[in-house]
């Protein structure tokens, strides 16, 4: 077995995670500020900015999967179960909100919020699965 498997995987994870979060923050803040300066706002620019904001988040998801692949077996189990529970909880809420909209109980809900909701559900699930210890 490779020595320092867990530590090197954790290092690689942090080396990618924090820069990606910084890039995400810069794109969202600078992008929305820049867009607000324009009147009218060109659709192509709005679309480009929307995709650009999502790219660091998608990259973060891939980094999370790489961490799950490279880390030790117990942490991998906790991470993958956390991701699974995050997905199950988010999809369940997505269906409930979707049907509430179809049956005209609620009028409008921003789809965007399911993204952050997934990360919260994943984080809480991982914390519960690991018995409150950070993995």
């Amino acid at each position, binding site marked *: 077995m490779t*020595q320092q498997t867990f530590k090197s995987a954790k290092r690689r994870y942090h080396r990618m995670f924090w820069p990606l979060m910084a890039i995400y923050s810069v794109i969202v803040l600078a992008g929305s500020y820049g867009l607000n300066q324009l009147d009218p706002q060109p659709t192509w620019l709005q679309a480009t900015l929307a995709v650009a904001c999502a790219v660091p988040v998608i990259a973060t998801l891939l980094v999370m999967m790489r961490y799950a692949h490279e880390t030790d077996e117990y942490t991998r189990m906790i991470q993958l179960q956390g991701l699974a529970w995050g997905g199950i909880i988010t999809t369940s809420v997505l269906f409930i909100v979707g049907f509430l909209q179809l049956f005209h109980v609620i009028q409008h809900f921003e789809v965007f919020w399911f993204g952050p909701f997934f990360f919260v559900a994943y984080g809480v699930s991982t914390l519960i699965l*690991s018995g409150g210890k950070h993995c």
Partner: protein
Amino acid sequence: MKNIIRALRTERGWSQASLADELGVSRQSVNAIETGKYDPSLPLAFAIARLFGKSIEEIFDDATEASIAAE
């Protein structure tokens, strides 16, 4: 699965963190294995056995699994 890792570790004066470093796993992994919350894979069980200079059977107690298999 019950095991005597905690006893072997404390006998040698090792912390969970130092054992985790030796095995290349997290301290949480060592804790989960020691408390029986997680059963290690065969390669990790061999690594643990090698580190303590014992056989897998000497460290891990498969009494529960053996009784289930016998039924």
